[in-house]
């Protein structure tokens, strides 16, 4: 059995107990990547093996000296390629950032490094995190380890596939409208989108700044809690970073949900939801009820308005955030051009992919003169109403339970042609970002094609502990396998 079959915390424990060296763990990750990348393609950049082993050696030394003693010290990690890493190419899976080597490291990754993480590579994603299949990457599609003909979901598809394929112990993803939770659902792994402002966005290449959050992707809830604890921090470099005192998420790992109140939005179980997903999620709710949680169906309201509001806000912000990619300061510049504006237009048109251009254009349009009020402001007002609906719900419930996606992973190549249909797949995830809430996704079953089904638990702002506790309690009832691939790939 590969060391990569262990959870991050298990591996960390073995390293601490000197049963495994950091170099051995790193070597296991590098070997797994070598063996599986050709079929899965989780990574945009895999680090040089010698460099990884050198870093592993340093971490080993620090562990021995006692300067590193956290649960993740020495454990190999993969980082989504939209987080800046000093000296390591960072592309956002876009041609426009080809050749870009950041001169600084994002705060979340820095926090991981201080916890003794050993980075093995940068994972593939939908270009600039725009998409839900990881098919819009300029560096090839990532495949779902459970069935290579299916997508891993997105946009953190590379991170989720890498964890599912056991190419690393855990990974960092980012979630703007479901980009951690949906691919976790598709790949049968566990991930958390924290409350907005919990993890610093400094160094995260922005898609929708008011929605983006970095979060963990791992094999189980325990790992996620430990990782979130490591990456969360108040950061003076991020004005939207929140000062929180309750970042001891691992303290919530208790197998006890007695008396906790779960709300199940009726609207989440309407048309469009795959029957098998519905059954698995309902069964999970039953499991929690059996463990002593109180369960009630309720009307959340405004569910269908979250998607249009989300796309207006995210695309508007993206159109501005992505303006800096212009061929002047870094990344791709077109070869032949006549004058400044032609250089801009050609560099951007050649550098961005179809979906990114689609969203930039939509975003530019909804902010343009004459449409700002009708679209952008209306979307921000809708967001306020949606937030109110959640406030109301959380005055009654500790956790909202539902699916993370209406279906299991679709086949490769079947999603991109109809954007609206693709956006509808985000129905259970985007409102969480609009309202700044924390959400966790963990596996709760398989469909008849052998593809994982995800369960989503949503908490009130700053109440990650509620969803971690409930997810942990649910997970304790399961003996599902963490990865499909150890024997198949």
């Amino acid at each position, binding site marked *: 059995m590969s060391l990569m079959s262990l959870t991050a915390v298990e591996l960390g424990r073995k390293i601490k107990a000197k049963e495994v060296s950091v170099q051995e763990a790193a070597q296991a990750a590098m070997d797994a990547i070598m063996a599986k990348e050709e079929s899965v393609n989780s990574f945009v950049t895999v680090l040089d093996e010698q460099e990884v082993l050198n870093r592993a050696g340093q971490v080993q030394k620090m562990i021995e000296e006692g300067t590193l003693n956290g649960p993740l010290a020495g454990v190999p990690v993969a980082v989504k390629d939209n987080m800046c890493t000093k000296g390591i190419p960072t592309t956002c899976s876009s041609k426009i950032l080809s050749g870009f080597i950041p001169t*600084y490291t994002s705060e979340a990754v820095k926090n991981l490094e201080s916890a003794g993480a050993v980075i093995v590579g940068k994972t593939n994603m939908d270009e600039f995190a725009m998409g839900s299949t990881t098919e819009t990457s300029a560096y090839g599609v990532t495949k779902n380890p459970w069935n290579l003909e299916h997508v891993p979901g997105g946009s953190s598809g590379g991170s989720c596939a890498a964890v599912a394929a056991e190419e690393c112990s855990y990974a960092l993803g980012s979630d703007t409208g479901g980009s951690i939770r949906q691919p976790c659902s598709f790949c049968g792994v566990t991930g958390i989108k924290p409350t907005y402002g919990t993890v610093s966005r400094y160094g995260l290449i922005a898609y929708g700044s008011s929605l983006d959050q970095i979060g963990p992707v791992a094999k189980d809830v325990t790992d996620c809690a430990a990782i979130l604890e490591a990456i969360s921090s108040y950061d003076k470099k991020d004005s939207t970073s929140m000062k929180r005192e309750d970042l001891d998420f691992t303290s919530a790992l208790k197998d006890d949900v007695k008396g906790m109140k779960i709300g199940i939005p009726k609207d989440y179980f309407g048309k469009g939801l795959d029957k098998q997903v519905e059954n698995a999620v309902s069964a999970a709710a039953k499991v929690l009820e059996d463990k002593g949680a109180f369960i009630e169906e309720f009307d959340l309201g405004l569910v269908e308005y979250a998607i249009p509001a989300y796309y207006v806000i995210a695309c508007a912000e993206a159109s501005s955030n992505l*303006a*800096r990619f212009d061929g002047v300061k870094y990344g791709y510049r077109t070869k032949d051009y006549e004058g400044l504006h032609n250089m801009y237009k050609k560099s951007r048109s050649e550098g961005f992919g179809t979906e990114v251009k689609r969203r930039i254009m939509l975003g530019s349009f909804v*902010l343009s003169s004459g449409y700002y009020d009708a679209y952008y402001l209306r979307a921000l007002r809708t967001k306020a109403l949606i937030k109110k609906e959640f406030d109301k719900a959380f005055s009654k419930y500790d956790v909202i339970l539902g699916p993370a996606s209406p279906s299991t992973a679709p086949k490769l190549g079947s999603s991109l042609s109809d954007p609206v249909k693709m956006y509808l797949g985000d129905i259970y995830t985007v409102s969480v970002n609009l309202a700044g809430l924390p959400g966790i996704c963990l596996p709760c079953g398989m469909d008849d094609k052998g593809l994982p089904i995800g369960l989503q638990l949503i908490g009130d702002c700053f109440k990650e502990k509620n969803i971690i506790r409930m997810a942990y309690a649910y997970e304790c009832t399961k003996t599902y396998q963490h990865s499909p691939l150890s024997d198949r790939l």
Partner: protein
Amino acid sequence: MSKEYETVIGLEVHVELATKTKIFCSCSTEFGGAPNSHTCPVCTGMPGALPVLNRKVVEYAMAVGLATNCEITRNCKFDRKNYFYPDNPQNYQISQLYLPICRNGGIEIELEDGGKKTIGIHEIHMEEDAGKLVHDEAEDVSIVDFNRSGVPLIEIVSEPDMRSAQEVIAYLDKLRLIIQYLGASDCKLQEGSMRADVNLSVRKEGEAEFGTRTEMKNLNSFRAIARAIENEKNRQIDLIESGEKVVQETRRWDDNKEYSYAMRSKEDAKDYRYFPDPDLVPVFISDEWIKEVKARQPELPTEKLARYQREYGLPEYDAKILTGEKKFADIFEAATEICGKPKKVSNWLMVETIRLLKEHDMDPADIRFSPVHLAKLVDLAEGGTVNSTVAKEVFEAVFTDDIDPEQYVKEKGLQTVNDEGALRSVIEEVVKNNPKSVEDYKNGKDKAIGFLVGQTMKAMKGKANPGMVNGILKEILSR
């Protein structure tokens, strides 16, 4: 023909604030340095970098707002102004559109006929400056330097209340003075720390509606502003007179050619898609904070003007000139504090200092001498240690080299000679050698004594006590 027309002018004045660091990062705002040396990921628009607001910028903006009678917006926000240009690293500028920090103010200016007029201030907002583009003519390329990118600016937008170039200059002068007093900026037009864009339209006398306006950029001196206004006014009147329409556009002034041209480009949609910057949180300004900033507010020009007359008994004319330049006021107060002779200090500033500034083509802001040295000079002159001619000579040295007058006078032996015996023998000599003048004087030509005094001073190398020379001369001549 132009008499039938009225010119309507509003100004957008950009002022670079005197903070040590940029508005959203810790890079230095210092001038100079190699290209791109004062830069970091934030002010160069690196992917993933985020802005954090410099508190001092808010305080300077508030101070200027309070000093110009504005209302302070208690909950103000930053917006992104989206446009592509290489000096703008993010391709959006962080500015304020929807909720600027100050609104509805105004300052009073003095008109040429002595009357007064209030020029309204529509709003003041905070924003970041752009980088610098250097054009390489030979290679047909431009080079971007981001050292100035992110330097804090306030933009002061006036109401269209001005009607002539004179009013514009008076408004700018007053604004500059207030801001310099506050220490919020040095406001140098030539160096670009103060920049004015002129919005101008014309309308027939008596018409209620404004005409179509143009915006004029690249005005680097008061002279350029005055010339551009005159030129644009005439251009618009000519257009209207010949039956054409004024087009709303931005024009660039070329002061060498005394001509402006439209900055038009089909790649320029002028649709800035402003929206609240999601990376920055709102600024809430409490009563306490306003009180704090107010309490730190120094005395402003109008208050100083009244005080100089009241406290130092200066004539209004003197007080106006002294308070009209922050540097004058600073030197005046410091020197007076030491020597206790306000009128004398004022005279040195108003006569000799202004003369020398003109002679050296300098601004008052460029004055380098210490008020201590001016005070010492006043004491030397008033105490009779040096006579007025010598004092002027010493002052020139103070002005150019900031010398210590006491030491200078001692080293150069410039003390006035008060020794009556010595003076008397020199004067006897002068009288003996100039019989013609003595003759003239005795025949009633009083002026002739002036020549004899001059000759005596010349013989004494200027150091004689002029009062004593006069007395002794008269006594000898009356013999």
